[in-house]
């Protein structure tokens, strides 16, 4: 059991853990079939202290900000841990964003130090203007003789001694951007207290034994992997495995080679695993397939109340072995997990732990405790966290509000946004749901104008409007989440649309072509799928700001299927 109530910070908790588990294996970094390295807890400590000393030698002090823009790899962990020990506020930034988007976030949080990979730094350097004039940039894995501009090598000698810097539960541990690269970025300020509370909850619900390994596949900058793929394994004395490519065949081979026990996945990878298992089964002779079907039913009956890994991995050995033989849990964000796939894996004896969370509440708000497994909900509120359904309709559906030790302090430099999200100690999630008699939460839609992609990115329509300025022949326009205007009672397959007010009755071909071309230049997850033509003037405030809520109400009177026109078919 994890007991963290007397601990003050993440850094302190992992420092204690290193003392306890010093000779355990902490980290393995693989690159395709090769292994780049493996580190014990003691060696992890040396690497993190070296990095902390490097920052401190250049004047880094308690409360200074340190940003990391890196793929999952060992140096992410060394830097993150070293940063905590140097007293940093850590800012994990999505490495998949474009360089200009990353620079916008960096301009917002103004870190004292930025850690990034050479390839990312090259892209950042190509951008005009720099948000990093006063930032110490440390670049990993730069080739010999490479021109680094203002940056320095991450691997250089520290040039000074390391001093452990203590932090308290009230100090901000991380600033995590939940959305937005234009408009006002939402940098959630999460304290050490928030993370310790969440780590204790998850570490006790789904602990890793000392010989178990978590495969860190989702980006570590993401709230889920940060918690279950970085903090929790190190507090439990377990191991973390990184694979530096996300090619499917290497994900599977890594699971086998290292006997992975825990993994967090996005639905697409889960689907791929399911497909592979089914293909393998199809290759078997008919009698073996029938035998396995029978064993699946036996397993399903035997694990109806709760999972039993030992039993399932014995009964269904060939299937478990195709995934390495030791896989105990797959973690997945509940909103997008296909029920059928979750059920399929459970019948095979591999529970998909479905949860629901917001960056604003650290990692998870509700999670399935697997007693029994249910694929139709996003689970129950985690211990210590209160979930309420407010303003419920006759069907019991209302907005989900959350209170507890994992709720953030607020958004960085955005008091208005903070005041909208945090009210009397409660976090308004903006999600619509209902609670059943056993306390399981079901989500059915959103109360706010936004979508969430399968990869967990929050997209606010306002943030993409600037890409569609000055379309030919358009008087006014506004971007919406289609489900905000016409709720469907579903949280998958969300779409964005643009409402256009043309000069005449209909936008010109030239306008639509321009719209399509600009749309294609957006990242896949930000693209519009439809347009709506509205010939009446948009409702606006005295300062001519469009009243989105009112416009949505006006549009709601029309039928969704009549109003929406697919963008790519004109």
């Amino acid at each position: 059991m994890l007991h963290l109530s007397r601990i003050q910070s993440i850094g302190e908790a992992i420092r204690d853990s290193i003392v306890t588990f010093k000779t355990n294996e902490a980290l393995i970094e693989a690159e395709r079939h090769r292994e780049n390295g493996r580190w014990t807890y003691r060696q992890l400590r040396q690497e993190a202290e070296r990095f902390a000393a490097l920052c401190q030698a250049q004047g880094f002090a308690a409360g200074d900000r340190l940003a990391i823009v890196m793929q999952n790899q060992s140096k992410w962990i060394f830097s993150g841990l070293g940063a905590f020990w140097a007293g940093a506020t850590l800012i994990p930034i999505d490495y998949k964003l474009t360089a200009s988007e990353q620079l916008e976030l960096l301009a917002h949080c103004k870190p004292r130090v930025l850690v990034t990979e050479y390839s990312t730094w090259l892209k950042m350097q190509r951008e005009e203007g720099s948000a990093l004039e006063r930032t110490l940039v440390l670049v990993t894995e730069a080739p010999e003789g490479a021109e680094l501009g203002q940056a320095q090598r991450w691997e250089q000698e520290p040039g000074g001694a390391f001093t452990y810097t203590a932090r308290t539960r009230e100090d901000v541990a991380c600033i995590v951007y939940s959305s937005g690269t234009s408009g006002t970025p939402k940098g959630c300020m999460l304290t050490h207290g928030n993370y310790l509370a969440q780590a204790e909850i998850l570490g006790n619900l789904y602990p890793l034994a000392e010989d178990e390994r978590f495969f860190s596949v989702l980006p570590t900058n993401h709230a889920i992997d940060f918690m279950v793929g970085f903090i929790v394994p190190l507090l439990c004395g377990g191991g973390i495995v990184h694979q530096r490519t996300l090619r499917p065949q290497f994900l599977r081979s890594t699971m086998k080679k290292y006997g992975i026990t825990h993994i967090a996945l996005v639905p697409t990878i889960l689907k791929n695993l399911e497909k592979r298992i089914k293909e393998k089964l199809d290759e078997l002779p008919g009698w073996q397939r029938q035998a396995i079907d029978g064993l699946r039913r036996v397993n399903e009956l035997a694990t109806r109340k709760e999972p039993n890994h030992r039993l399932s991995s014995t009964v269904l050995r060939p299937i478990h072995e195709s995934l390495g033989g030791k896989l105990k849990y797959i973690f997945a964000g509940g909103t997008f997990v296909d029920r059928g796939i979750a059920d399929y894996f459970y019948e095979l004896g591999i529970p998909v732990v479905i949860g629901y969370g917001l960056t604003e509440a650290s990692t998870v708000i509700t999670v399935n405790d697997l007693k029994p497994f249910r694929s139709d909900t996003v689970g129950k509120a985690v211990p210590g966290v209160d979930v309420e359904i407010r303003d419920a309709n006759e069907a019991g559906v209302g907005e989900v509000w959350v209170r507890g030790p994992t709720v953030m302090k607020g958004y960085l430099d955005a008091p208005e946004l903070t005041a909208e999200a945090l009210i009397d100690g409660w976090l308004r999630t903006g999600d619509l749901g209902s609670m059943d008699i056993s306390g399981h939460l079901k989500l059915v839609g959103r109360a706010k104008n936004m979508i969430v992609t399968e990869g967990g990115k929050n997209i606010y329509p306002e943030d993409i409007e600037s890409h569609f300025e000055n379309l030919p022949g358009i008087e006014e326009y506004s971007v919406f989440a289609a489900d905000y205007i016409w709720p469907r009672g579903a949280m998958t397959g969300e779409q964005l649309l643009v409402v256009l007010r043309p000069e005449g009755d209909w936008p010109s071909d030239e306008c639509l072509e321009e719209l399509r071309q600009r749309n294609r230049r957006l990242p896949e997850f930000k693209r519009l799928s439809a347009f709506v033509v509205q010939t009446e003037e948009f409702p606006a405030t005295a300062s001519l700001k469009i009243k989105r809520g009112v416009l949505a109400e006006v549009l709601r009177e029309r039928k969704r299927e009549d109003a929406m026109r697919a963008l790519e078919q004109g």
Partner: protein
Amino acid sequence: MSDVLDRLIKLAAKKYSADASTIEPDGDVFETLGIDSFQAAELMSELEMEFDVEIPDYELQGVKTFSGLAGVIDKRR
């Protein structure tokens, strides 16, 4: 059209049942083939085998078009 680009388009079209003759070199790979980033990773694995190269994931960040992809492969050959 370069040899790499030509072979790349044919292979991608075959894998995702698209008509190779309608694929534009500057077309968006995801949009044209209707695939997500994970399927794109699968496609990359096949391209690596076809061209006998190894392309680290970081080189693909920001590459969207068929010609861009061909350029990355060409550099590694």
